[in-house]
């Protein structure tokens, strides 16, 4: 068959119609990935605005812009939005878009599940924000310690919105994790053995496994919270034999692995970007890959370091302190691998590279302040001060926001087909970098001076005001820097240069196709012989019978887990509205649970089951098998 005929046939099979139906029913990972990124970015902006309002309140001693209650609600919504609805979903967005391109598959393993996880992520975010808009916002911080969150101290629906929207987000996150694991393990292009995967796939695989084993703890904690608040059961109240520490144990058993969930994929992106712009393969590929996996594993044995002040035996504390120190070892290996790559390579300073290097710098500062805070006596001193706020922001912005921007500048040309403007991009980077450091470095100092976190104001005679003024200025500068990049995006969408297939001369499979990729992505599923398929010349495996074209129906090749020897052709489902309606039914279920409309809950559950049956009912796919 000629290539042209194959292209036509594949387009007919894989294209998503540009109609309203097509928009809602799309199961294309490229559409869904971009939607994930956009939605998560909007949550970033919402959370950022909340942070700026807080900074305004804290600029002056005895500030009166916000009431104490409003301040509590703002810092809670800021933390919840950023950690749950921005930091992880934006990385899922990259993974949804990039994993199939990097593995050489035409879509993820479960395309309809992919659509469902996007819609349920969106609806859970809407569920969370119904709270503040009905005057019932959660107000207990992003980790909502008991007993403050029980019905006596937190009346109203605020904490219910928190608990139930998190359970719904947990369903979405777990679904996405299952999808990534199946895709990465079984949908890799023939020949892409596990030792030849791009490092981004290693980090996505690791965090997906982490999610499988960490998410249930949060779900359970939220279920306990609801049972205690709404049905008067006893889990956390010590008067009836419960323990408020149960919440902390469950929350942090989830919470610390979650830190790696929002950190590791970002390191994976840096491990792709730095070698490309250093013009050489990464130094120590196996060590970086193993560090990534081990971070995920050891990440499960450090959660008590969030709780050193609750009182526990010295042995326990030593164990968890040692575990925390061990993690920094793996991160150090990764960071030295990046530095060595830059050192041994011929670095090209693009905007994307700047963001990647900036993130390494911030990550080192944040990591070291973490080592300091991980020493138990120091932790006791710094507990609940701004030092901890500085640490978490250096780590999360250094290891999530900056890599995300690096990733956006790197992969947006692939997604949109147009280059981002480099000059505006570099301006954006420097303004963000300077703004961030001006805004957050002084937090270490005011923390050491004893300024507590989560208090809506401070007294004038403490001498904290000058530093706070500087921090507010820095925070706004950081916001301006981000705004410059948003302007850059809209400018470049119109006026940017055409990207072509491989504007960065990068090594991954995703750069072999046009930008944006065609609906079917590849005419022939590629065969891979090295870690850098576009850099190394090798004899592409002959495919005279067009075995790897698969143009008779919607099909992908599956291969085995370790060696990626091709096994079979997987049928891929057609467009479907069912995933969206399923997410909607779950949304109704959780919303009704907030307001205790039990009959609506039951109806929503029955609807969920019926939709599930519809989803799984045998139906033909496009094309002829």
């Amino acid at each position, binding site marked *: 068959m000629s290539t042209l005929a194959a292209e036509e046939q594949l387009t007919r099979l894989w294209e998503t119609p540009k109609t309203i139906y097509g928009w809602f029913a799309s199961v294309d990972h490229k559409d869904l990935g971009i939607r994930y990124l956009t939605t998560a970015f909007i949550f970033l902006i919402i959370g950022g605005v909340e942070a700026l309002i807080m900074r305004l309140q804290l600029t002056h001693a005895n500030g009166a812009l916000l009431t104490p209650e409003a301040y509590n609600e703002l810092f809670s919504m800021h933390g919840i939005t950023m950690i749950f609805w921005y930091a992880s979903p934006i990385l899922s967005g990259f993974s949804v878009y990039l994993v199939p391109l990097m593995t050489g598959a035409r879509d993820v393993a479960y395309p309809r599940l992919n659509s469902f996880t996007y819609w349920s992520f969106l609806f859970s975010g809407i569920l969370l924000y119904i709270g503040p808009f009905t005057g019932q916002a959660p107000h207990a911080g992003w980790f909502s310690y008991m007993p403050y969150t029980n019905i006596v101290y937190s009346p109203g629906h605020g904490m219910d919105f928190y608990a139930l929207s998190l359970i719904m987000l947990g369903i979405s996150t777990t679904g996405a994790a299952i999808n990534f694991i199946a895709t990465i393990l079984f949908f890799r292009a023939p020949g892409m053995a596990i030792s030849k995967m791009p490092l981004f796939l290693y980090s996505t695989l690791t965090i997906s496994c982490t999610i499988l*084993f960490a998410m249930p703890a949060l779900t359970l904690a939220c279920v306990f919270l609801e049972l205690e608040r709404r049905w008067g059961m006893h889990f956390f109240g010590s008067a009836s034999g419960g323990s408020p520490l*149960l919440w902390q*144990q*469950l929350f942090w058993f989830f919470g610390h692995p979650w830190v790696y969930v929002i950190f590791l994929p970002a390191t994976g992106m840096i491990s792709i970007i730095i070698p490309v712009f250093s013009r050489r393969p990464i130094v120590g590929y196996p060590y970086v890959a193993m560090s990534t996996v081990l971070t995920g594993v050891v990440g499960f044995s450090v959660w008590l370091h969030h709780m050193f002040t609750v009182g526990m035996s010295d042995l326990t504390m030593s164990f968890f302190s040692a575990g925390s120190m061990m993690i920094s070892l793996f991160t150090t290996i990764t960071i030295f691998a990046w530095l060595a790559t830059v050192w041994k390579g011929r670095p090209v300073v693009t905007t994307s590279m700047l963001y990647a290097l900036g993130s390494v710098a911030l990550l080192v500062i944040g990591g070291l302040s973490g080592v300091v805070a991980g020493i138990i006596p120091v932790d006791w001193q710094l507990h609940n001060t701004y030092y901890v706020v500085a640490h978490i922001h250096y780590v999360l912005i250094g290891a999530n926001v900056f890599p995300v921007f690096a990733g956006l500048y790197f992969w947006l040309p692939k997604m949109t087909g147009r280059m981002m403007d480099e000059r505006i991009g570099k301006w954006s980077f420097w303004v963000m970098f300077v703004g961030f450091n001006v805004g957050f470095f002084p937090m270490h100092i005011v923390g050491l001076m004893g300024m507590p976190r989560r208090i809506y104001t401070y007294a004038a005679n403490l001498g904290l005001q000058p530093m706070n003024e500087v921090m507010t200025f820095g925070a706004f500068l950081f916001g301006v820097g981000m705004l410059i990049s948003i302007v850059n995006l809209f400018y470049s969408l119109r006026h940017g240069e055409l990207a072509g297939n491989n504007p960065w001369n990068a090594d991954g499979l995703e750069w072999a196709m046009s930008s944006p990729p065609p609906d079917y992505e590849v005419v022939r599923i590629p065969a891979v012989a090295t870690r850098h398929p576009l850099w190394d010349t090798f004899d592409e495996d002959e495919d005279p019978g067009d*075995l790897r074209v698969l143009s008779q129906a919607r099909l992908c090749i599956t291969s085995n887990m370790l060696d990626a020897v091709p096994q079979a*052709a997987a049928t891929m489902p057609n467009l479907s509205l069912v995933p969206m309606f399923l997410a909607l039914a779950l949304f109704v279920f959780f919303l009704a649970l907030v307001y205790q409309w039990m009959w609506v809950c039951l109806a929503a559950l029955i609807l969920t089951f019926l939709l599930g049956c519809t989803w799984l009912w045998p139906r033909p796919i496009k094309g002829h098998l």
Partner: protein
Amino acid sequence: MSSLATPPVAPETPHTGVWPIEANRGVYGVTMVILTEATLFVCLFGSYYFLGADKYRWAVDHPPKLAKAFIMLGILFASSLVVMWGERLVEQGRYRLARGAVFTTILMGLVFLAVQAFEYKEHWKTLTPLTDSYGSIFYTITTFHAAHVIMGLLMLGYLSILPDYGPTQLPPHRPYHVVALYWHFVDVIWFFVVLLLYVIPHFQFYGF
């Protein structure tokens, strides 16, 4: 390199002409669901022991009676065997009998829930979820398990009306195996519930 492009095709499997049709995604999916759900129960049992750690007695007052729990365990184990038998029937192509096995399993699952209702009714006289933390965690764990039984029953219900169990070109592939795996999981969890919540409290030594 030629091994990369030549897929192994067994003659009797569904295929596209060149490639065999992939039929394991359901199994991968349900395996991962089972792993994450098992973690949920590990967390539940962990909470049970965490709440009991600082108590003089745990279970508070009297340990739960064993008879009904063992009957329920027997029912579930037997139903797992029925499903395994059904899977073998599917392999042999005896689909009508396999469908019978599904209905039998559903019936046994319903009996399980009925016995649990009686068990609850009896238990309720001395212990409710509102009594204390022990009551709360006891009923939460057993109800979570019951919810998983209901989930399994719904999956079996779907399986009972599914037209085709054999190897097919179109998904769902291997539906019988997928549902059976989940049902075994529900069964194994009940074994741990009986062991940890019912049996072990009878053997605890409370000192003098």
